[in-house]
């Protein structure tokens, strides 16, 4: 019988061969592209590679990367969340108003923001998990509703005179230690934790399973729906934290425009990072690099003195390049 006929083989397999590689090709490609870009910008602009320039850039990146972590989870489960911008808006305005009204301590402000985001995200999760409607539809719907909530809270005015409570997350000098912005550190920590979680934790690996074949995951005994609720809730919470960063890096007034258009930027960062939009494959490190890439391009165009409207043309092109290389490698992998 075959079993017996099978020749002898090492009894152990090294983990590296069972788990996905530590760094994906996509991450290497992105890193390469980034290095090249930064070098070029360093050459062609006077001050791109100075702390005064990189610092603020990373502060700008932080919220995108942070929400990107959640969005990566969501897209891994073959979902998508187009309501993040609206969630940012709601928790930003709520927090800002409380800061002005009660001069909350930073910790409390953070908790409030995160709690608000968590609540909204959980609503998304419940609807996605139990509503049996495609996530893009659910989150389109909730996005509109969240926006309405946000506008009601704004109550047709801006929030003025926001205290500097959260400045330790901002662009200013309080915002960074030894030139390293705290906001960015937080984002990096979040990415690191997520990376570990997705690679080694049971719950993390199961997300890939859910994204790869939801029905099979259910039959394998994974509680799919609760997991989805958590995933969307976490995204909401991260959006809340990102909202604090935006308050901090923004001016002393907050207006309705907060967060607008961020959902597409976040999705752009995630897909540039090599996460497959159909789920089951992706990495948070890629997302971080993607977020940095997008912001580099936008800032780079400004610093080069080119018309700023060109910035997003390049973002578009980079999306195609990044995903293109991923497609090519994917084909190669399938052939091999």
């Amino acid at each position, binding site marked *: 019988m075959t079993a017996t006929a099978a020749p002898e083989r090492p009894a152990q397999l090294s983990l590296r061969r069972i788990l996905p590689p530590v760094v994906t090709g996509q991450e290497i490609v992105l890193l390469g592209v980034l290095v090249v870009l930064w070098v070029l910008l360093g050459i062609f602009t006077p001050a791109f590679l100075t702390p005064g320039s990189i610092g603020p850039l990373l502060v700008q990146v932080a919220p995108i990367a942070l929400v990107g972590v959640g969005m990566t989870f969501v897209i891994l489960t073959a979902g998508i969340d187009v309501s993040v911008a609206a969630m940012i808006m709601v928790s930003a305005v709520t927090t800002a108003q409380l800061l002005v009204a009660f001069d909350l301590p930073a910790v409390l402000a953070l908790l409030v923001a995160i709690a608000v985001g968590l609540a909204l995200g959980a609503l998304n999760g419940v609807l996605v998990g139990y509503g049996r409607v495609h996530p893009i539809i659910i989150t389109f719907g909730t996005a509109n509703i969240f926006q309405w909530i946000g*506008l009601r809270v704004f109550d*047709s005015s801006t929030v003025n005179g926001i205290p500097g409570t959260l400045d330790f997350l901002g662009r*200013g000098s309080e915002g960074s230690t030894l030139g390293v912005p705290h906001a960015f550190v937080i984002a990096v920590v979040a990415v690191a934790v997520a990376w570990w979680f997705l690679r080694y934790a049971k719950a993390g690996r199961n997300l890939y399973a859910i994204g790869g074949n939801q029905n099979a995951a259910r039959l394998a005994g994974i509680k799919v729906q609760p997991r989805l609720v958590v995933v969307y809730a976490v995204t909401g919470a991260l959006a809340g934290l990102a909202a604090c960063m935006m308050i901090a890096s923004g001016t002393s007034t907050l207006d309705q425009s907060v967060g607008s258009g961020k959902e597409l930027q976040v999705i752009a960062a995630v897909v540039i990072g090599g996460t497959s939009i159909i789920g089951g494959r992706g990495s948070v490190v890629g997302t971080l690099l993607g977020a940095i890439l997008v912001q580099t391009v936008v*800032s780079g165009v400004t610093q080069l003195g080119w018309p700023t409207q060109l910035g997003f043309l390049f973002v578009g092109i980079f999306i195609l390049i990044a995903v293109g290389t991923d497609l090519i490698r994917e084909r190669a992998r399938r052939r091999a």
Partner: protein
Amino acid sequence: TSRNDTGETAAPGATDGASAEGLTIAFVPKLQGIPYFEAMNTGGQQAAEELGFEWLYQGPTTADAAAQADIVRSFIQQGVDVLFVAPNDPNSMAPLLQEAQDAGIHVATTDTDAPDSVREVFVNQASVEGIGQALTDTLLEAMGGSGKYAIVSCGETAANLNAWIEVQEEYTASEYPDAEIVDVVYAGEDQAMATQMATDLMNSNPDLTGLVGECTSSAPGVAQAVEDAGRTGEVFTVGLGTPQSMLPYLESGSSSGSILWDVEALGYLTGWAGMQLANDGDLGDLSGVDNEALTAVEYDEASGVLLLGPPTVFTAENAGDYDY
């Protein structure tokens, strides 16, 4: 079925007598919820109470010509007597104003004009030149009459912002030979974007000593960027910012001045002009009005422009007096 209803509902507007009784004046801003237009609303309501007409205010949630048109249409349907619009897109508003007039409504513009339209009057906060020059003068006074500066504008397509920018360019070239505008960037209505772009500009032009925030969202943005970069006193900023949002920066010195005008007064003037239109009153004489903010008002019969007066320069001293 009811083709003529509109005519009937609109009739009052056309026939209504001289009194302000039952007079309804509507105002459609470019965008709701921003302090600038909400302040105009306040001024308008104040006028309504004092002069005794009904003041309606409704704006789109995004600065979007189509959304604005829907609201204008609903006001036409409501058969208001006078309709004021601050058009997002003057061209697209023109035909709608025509429709409104055909429905027997007095139409007018405020804050932003729709030049080749049937509007009866344009309530102008300040002349394009006035604003452009005030911005330039205030900034260059701080910069010591020379140096490089850049402009952080907002919506790429905003007509009046682009007009002001043109004036600034010409005026700087002619009046301040040693000064130069190195770049004009567009941040949309997004404060964070404005701040980031200002930061980028300072980095890419180390010898930059001035920044202009061309609209109410980028004015505080550029000041914030200067503060964050810790270059208050080296890089000077001015902008068109509402007093409340600029106050902290005026006090910290990161903003050398905010060029604007008494927005509530502008709203008041708009309301008053509306009443005059409805009663075929003379837009020239404000005798009936006691509002010290409206002393400098001029009316130009020919162009049908009602000018609030020269722009105000807000400083740390006076900015606190305004609650918007």
